[in-house]
């Protein structure tokens, strides 16, 4: 009788058990996104500081690299309390929901061939799954703002929700022109199509611009961070959150930023494809971090817009431009196919 447990035995066991397999995929995605979020936070603090002629974190660790760990430990030993006016159940559940939903939107991101092969091939409309989870954010923001029991949080929640729903329509209309080019809602398929064609950032350039602007607003980053506006207002809907609850809200923001950048990379910039023979996962990761760095650069370079400018930009410019471009895209696809720019 062979009772020896071998590595291949474990792998076969995990492959056969569908629950374990997907739990493993989730853990891998979690490790990737944790490393991604840490790098994002470091870039956010250090790169931003360097642009503004500051130093950023320097004390803890070499070049301040351990500052984030120190901050996390500080959050973990903070006292846990809920404001007296808060609806305690919802107030405590909102951070958990927030991080869960943000994390679940990673499900659709094609990190790698190997991760891709672990996923069921029937998860075909993976883009819809990702944006379905993205679209839950306004609800969480409203619940969080209402449940905390402050006037500022309530108003902040309403403003956030108005901003998020205003930019959701241009966001979907812009990614639909990529769907028109690739004729698929599957992100793996979209990246595979780009292997034999020009990057969609070139073929669908107006959609690339509208998607980037709409994504900036969806992630509530400068110049669209007026719900947070940390130099003028307090912090928007999450003012009353402290300790690990704030940590969860903050983490979910960076997970969303990572997921959003990765979706942008997969849709328009060729995902895991690249000229040099680096593993595909590293390519996607590198491109995502570069896109995020550009977002930080935009944050350092642009002033914050006013709320009326923000809403006018969304409704009057982005929606018409992305809708007209969506109707024009099939003609572009036709011309590109004739000239061999699209497979």
């Amino acid at each position, binding site marked *: 009788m062979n009772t020896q447990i071998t590595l291949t035995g474990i792998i076969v066991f995990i492959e056969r058990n569908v629950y374990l397999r997907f739990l493993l995929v989730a853990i891998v995605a979690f490790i990737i996104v944790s490393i991604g979020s840490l790098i994002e936070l470091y870039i956010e603090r250090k790169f931003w500081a360097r642009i503004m002629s500051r130093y950023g974190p320097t004390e803890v660790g070499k070049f301040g690299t351990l500052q984030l760990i120190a901050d996390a430990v500080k959050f973990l030993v903070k006292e846990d309390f809920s404001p007296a006016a808060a609806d305690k159940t919802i107030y405590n559940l909102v951070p958990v929901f927030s991080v*869960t939903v943000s994390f679940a939107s990673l499900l659709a991101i094609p990190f790698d061939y190997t991760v891709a092969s672990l996923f069921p091939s029937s998860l075909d409309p993976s883009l819809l799954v990702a944006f379905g989870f993205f679209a839950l954010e306004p609800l969480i923001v409203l619940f969080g703002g209402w449940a905390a029991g402050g006037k500022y949080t309530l108003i902040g929640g309403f403003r956030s929700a108005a901003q998020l729903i*205003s930019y959701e329509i241009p966001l979907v209309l812009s990614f639909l022109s990529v769907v028109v080019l690739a004729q698929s809602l599957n992100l793996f398929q979209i990246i595979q199509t780009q292997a034999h064609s020009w990057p969609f950032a070139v073929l669908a350039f107006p959609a690339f611009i509208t998607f980037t602007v709409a994504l900036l607003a969806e992630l509530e980053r400068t110049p669209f961070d007026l719900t947070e506006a940390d130099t003028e207002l307090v912090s928007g809907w999450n003012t009353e959150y402290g300790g690990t609850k704030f940590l969860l809200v903050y983490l979910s923001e960076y997970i969303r930023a990572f997921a959003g950048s990765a979706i942008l990379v997969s849709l328009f910039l060729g995902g895991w494809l690249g000229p040099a023979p680096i593993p595909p996962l590293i390519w996607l990761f590198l491109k995502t971090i570069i896109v995020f760095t550009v977002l930080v650069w935009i944050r350092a370079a642009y002033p914050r817009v006013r709320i009326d400018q923000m809403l006018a930009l969304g409704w009057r410019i982005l929606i018409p431009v992305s809708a007209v471009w969506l109707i024009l895209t099939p003609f572009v696809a036709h011309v590109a196919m004739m000239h061999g720019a699209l497979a």
Partner: protein
Amino acid sequence: MAFVENIAILMFLFLGGALGFAAEFIPRLFTKPRPTPEKLAPFESGEDPVGTARIRFRIQYYIYAVAFVAFDIVVALAIPWAVGWGYVYWTPIILLLAVMLAVVGYYSAKGDLEWI
């Protein structure tokens, strides 16, 4: 819609939720709540809070929300066209998007999209 992909979604939700709950409960193990009235009061720039937090809010948010729901249905109807544009008629989707743009124009002209 196969069964396996539901498991994939469930596992992601499970892991995210488990980590979230763990992060909320770990600090409760080694910190003791010491509530004071000031600590539990809602933040209002350091002043004493005035009245309740259940305040009235603008009707404007409602208008944006209604516009969003209507437009989102149009966008949702555009998704199947975007996947299979080579095989279906284009007239309905062009009409829908044109109506949507006309509504945006009407909203703008009427001033309902202005932030007062």
